């Protein structure tokens, strides 16, 4: 039984189709990179996988637990939001509370563990808005991993970061997989995608390509990424 099965999926906004006839499956522990041009529907697909956008056709089947961790594409208004690092990370624990009003007994420990895991304990009292872009992404990763440590979906985690900080962030994400985490990441950096990912999903405007990273390098889509595109 695969972890995720996407069958004949179509996603649309106000009747305008962004994704059509999409099929793929993922096993636990896989690392899928979603690549493609701007506007090809990468974020839309993540929203579909997260049930933020209902499919107009087809289905998305998650095996058992489907409460994924999520690192959204950051918005401008978030960057100067008045909240401390600790306050932001703690909001990652809220899904486990369900309808309970008060914190669960293990919430504090979960927050501490994730602050440590991303090396941001010393920033805990700092205002989120005053952090660098790379530090903010670490905070949001810590928040995401508070919500779940089975599946992690990321939307362009390195957008707006300089290459050095990006490389470090990719290493950090790689290291998370040691615990058996399944990763689905949207990115426009092909190099880290090819070096770490087990699978690639290349979205074009009318078609797509899905397969393992080795196959991708042999395929016209993969070769094309250096110059052209699919379809």
């Amino acid at each position: 039984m695969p972890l995720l099965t996407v069958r004949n999926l179509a996603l649309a906004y106000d009747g305008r189709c962004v994704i059509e006839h999409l099929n793929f499956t993922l096993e636990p522990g896989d690392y899928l990179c979603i690549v493609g041009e701007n506007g090809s529907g990468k974020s839309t697909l993540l929203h579909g996988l997260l049930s933020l956008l209902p499919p107009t056709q087809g289905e998305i089947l998650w095996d058992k637990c489907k409460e994924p961790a999520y690192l959204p594409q950051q918005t401008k208004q978030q960057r100067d939001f008045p909240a401390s690092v600790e306050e932001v990370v703690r909001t990652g624990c809220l899904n486990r509370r369900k309808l309970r009003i008060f914190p669960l007994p293990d919430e504090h420990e979960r927050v501490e563990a994730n602050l440590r895991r991303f090396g941001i304990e010393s920033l805990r009292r700092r205002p989120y808005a005053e952090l660098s872009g790379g530090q903010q992404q670490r905070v949001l990763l810590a928040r995401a991993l508070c919500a779940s440590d089975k599946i992690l979906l990321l939307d362009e985690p390195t957008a707006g970061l300089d290459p050095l900080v990006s490389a470090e962030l990719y290493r950090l994400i790689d290291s998370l997989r040691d615990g058996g985490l399944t990763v689905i990441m949207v990115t426009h950096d092909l190099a880290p995608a090819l070096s770490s990912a087990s699978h690639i999903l290349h979205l074009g405007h009318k078609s797509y390509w899905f397969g393992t990273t080795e196959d991708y390098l042999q395929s016209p889509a993969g070769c094309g990424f250096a110059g052209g595109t699919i379809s």
Partner: protein
Amino acid sequence: MTEFFSMFGYSFMQRALIAGIAVSLCAALLGVSLVLRRYAMIGDGLSHVAFGAVSVATALHLSPLWVAVPVVMLTAVLLLSARENNHTRGDASVAMLSTASLAIGVLAMAGKNTDVYSYMFGSILAVRAEEMWLCLLLGAAVLVFFLLFRDRILSLTFDEGFARATGQRIGGIRLALAIFTAVTIVLGMRLMGTLLISALVLFPAMSAMQICRRFGSVLCAAGIISVLCFIAGLCISYQFDLAPGATVVAANLTVYTILRLVRR
């Protein structure tokens, strides 16, 4: 000093003070979330819808409060609690709704008594006992709501997409915020007037964000600033015989300007 306290010897001043403190606190707390979610214009739109509803109710000889509360509540739920869809909830549609309500209100009150004027410009010194109790009840409810659900309110305000994607139960929080906002605006309209109530939502939050960098402290500061500005505005307006609503807004504007200037 005794002269200062003597003004609160009048029961109408006591009622104004109590109702005003409760509404200022609610408006400030709700305002923080509204401003941070970029819904500031909706607060203003709701006050115009409230004005339209009050005028129509007065024309039809119905109780203004009991018509305005459900109408504004429904509008607030539609605007604030509807599914995230940025493409249909533009600035333009909110502005259209708010000016249309204003026009309907003005037409409905043609040739009618001055009751509507009191809603337009506020009549803080004419607050009745039952209105004061309603304000107190609302204030207590909003305060308890923010104390218990601060984490969830932060989560919804900071990143609604994350909250929904990870399965957080925030639908009720969003609905409650919309309903509290509606009731605060309708009750506040009686105190401050339609034209000024949205200032009570915006200014304390904006002032607090000049000096605070954490969500908890922004909420505290906004509440304190709002209540103090209200008390100061009420006292000054009494001493110098000014319009109370406008004086309270002027006090808020002064605090905002000072904090803006001293910031870093």
